[in-house]
């Protein structure tokens, strides 16, 4: 128990004194996961509405498949990205292995199924009259999609935040394709993993505490959103 208390005190110290290494790792984590989320959002918004507004054979199967990938193991995505981007792999000449750029690519692949699935369900749960009305007023499919997304904005934002939560908390992929290089690809989760294995429990706790704070912030935003959504529905 003493170790835990000592760790928490040290953790608070590292945080309130803005320890440069801890800060750098935190901002790197935020930067990588935010960028990954941004890319995934830009792909998933149009793709999600395209899937929702198009009728084709196997659509249900595709949606179930996307939902299955919600819990895609991070190490599996890591392995796939490693094979593709390693120097000996098909995209090897891009020279992206063990860089933050590749971590961004990997994390966006990781969160895309979750985001895509949630965006599609957001559109499904939206009153069908929204799109119908738009179409009857002569809107194109693009305009109807845009309008629907706008109407379902809270659920859409929720999906983005959920994606961010998955990205910032994962460790397997970051370790495999980032390599946990000090001052370059080391992020909160990989640093916690390494510091614990080195026996530096205090630093691990401090980093864990920061990660927890980020999750807390995400949750506050989420619950705030849901409240807004409820009052909007009324």
């Amino acid at each position: 128990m003493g170790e835990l208390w000592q760790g928490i005190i040290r953790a608070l110290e590292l945080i309130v004194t803005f320890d440069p290494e801890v800060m750098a790792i935190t901002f790197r984590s935020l930067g990588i996961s935010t960028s990954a989320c941004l890319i995934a959002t830009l792909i998933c918004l149009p793709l999600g509405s395209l899937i929702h507004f198009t009728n084709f054979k196997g659509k249900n199967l595709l949606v179930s498949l996307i939902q299955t990938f919600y819990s895609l193991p991070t190490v599996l995505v890591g392995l796939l990205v490693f094979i593709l981007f390693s120097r000996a792999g098909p995209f090897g000449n891009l020279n992206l292995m063990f860089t933050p750029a590749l971590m961004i690519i990997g994390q966006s692949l990781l969160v895309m199924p979750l985001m895509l699935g949630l965006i599609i369900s957001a559109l499904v749960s939206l009153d069908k009259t929204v799109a119908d009305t738009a179409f009857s007023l002569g809107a194109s499919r693009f305009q109807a999609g845009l309008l629907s997304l706008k109407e379902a904005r809270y659920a859409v934002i929720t999906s983005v935040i959920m994606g961010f939560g998955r990205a910032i908390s994962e460790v397997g992929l970051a370790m495999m394709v980032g390599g946990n290089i000090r001052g370059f690809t080391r992020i909160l989760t990989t640093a916690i993993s390494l510091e614990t294995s080195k026996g530096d429990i205090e630093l691990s706790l401090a980093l864990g505490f920061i990660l927890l704070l980020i999750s807390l912030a995400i949750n506050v935003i989420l619950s705030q959103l849901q409240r807004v959504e409820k009052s909007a529905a009324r």
Partner: protein
Amino acid sequence: MKNFKNIALSILLITAMLAGLSGCDSGGGSNIIPAQGRLRIATTTSLYDTGLWNALEDRFEEEEGIRLDILYAGTGIALEYGRRGDVDAVAVHAKATEEQFIADGYGIERIPFAYNYFVIVGPAGDPAGIADLSPEEAFKKLYDTQTTFISRGDASGTHTKEKAIWKAAGYDYEEVTSAGSWYVEAGKGMGPTLQMASEMDGYTLSDMGTFLAYKGETGLVTVVDEGSILLNVYSFIVIDPDNVEGADAEKAQILADFLVSDEIQQFIKDYGTADYGDSLFIPCAGNEPTS
């Protein structure tokens, strides 16, 4: 009211994203895509866990002006990174595997730069009674008494050495791994494996350097430390750019020369003496140590 909440939310989200994106630059002051001029090596976990590479990294970057990226990997995966061209050099410790690696054309040459000894460590009081035995006899006794043994189990240099000792003791390694629940394959680096051995009151094989660095917190003691089979040589191998596309042999050679320079050899010799009362590594300046 609703509008106010929308605006507040948008501001919050935008701030978070801006903070995040600016973090990309402030994080170590480095680009997210590798600038030319970074040297990338993979090093065995035992060299990293002692903190030696962190210390060498700072000196090297300052003296040579080359950014050094260090990957923490056991010998097995480190050599695989080398074969794939994902690193420019490796620092490993499994002689036979290294010689094969060079014979296959992936590495230019083996440059031994430091050595120490492996030790069999275990709980204080030596419950299995293997002290004073040779490493081979000690392993035999552990097998016969089914005493908890934590193996690295990760194709690292230490794991390769462990297999060699089992072989020398007259066992087929397959036989050992399926011998029962007393034989635990950790699949972790040296430091974590020592922690596991301590938690489980078991024995393990460790390199001297990592063991000394972890001795204080694990409470494990050296049980067997004599026997020629326990020699542990660390060598540096520059990846051969003729056979592995994209490897930067020029910069890697600068690091190789740096490692065997008089100044750094002295630094390696002194490394850890202040903290552990004993040097962790013995420098050998490019020559194969014999005993």
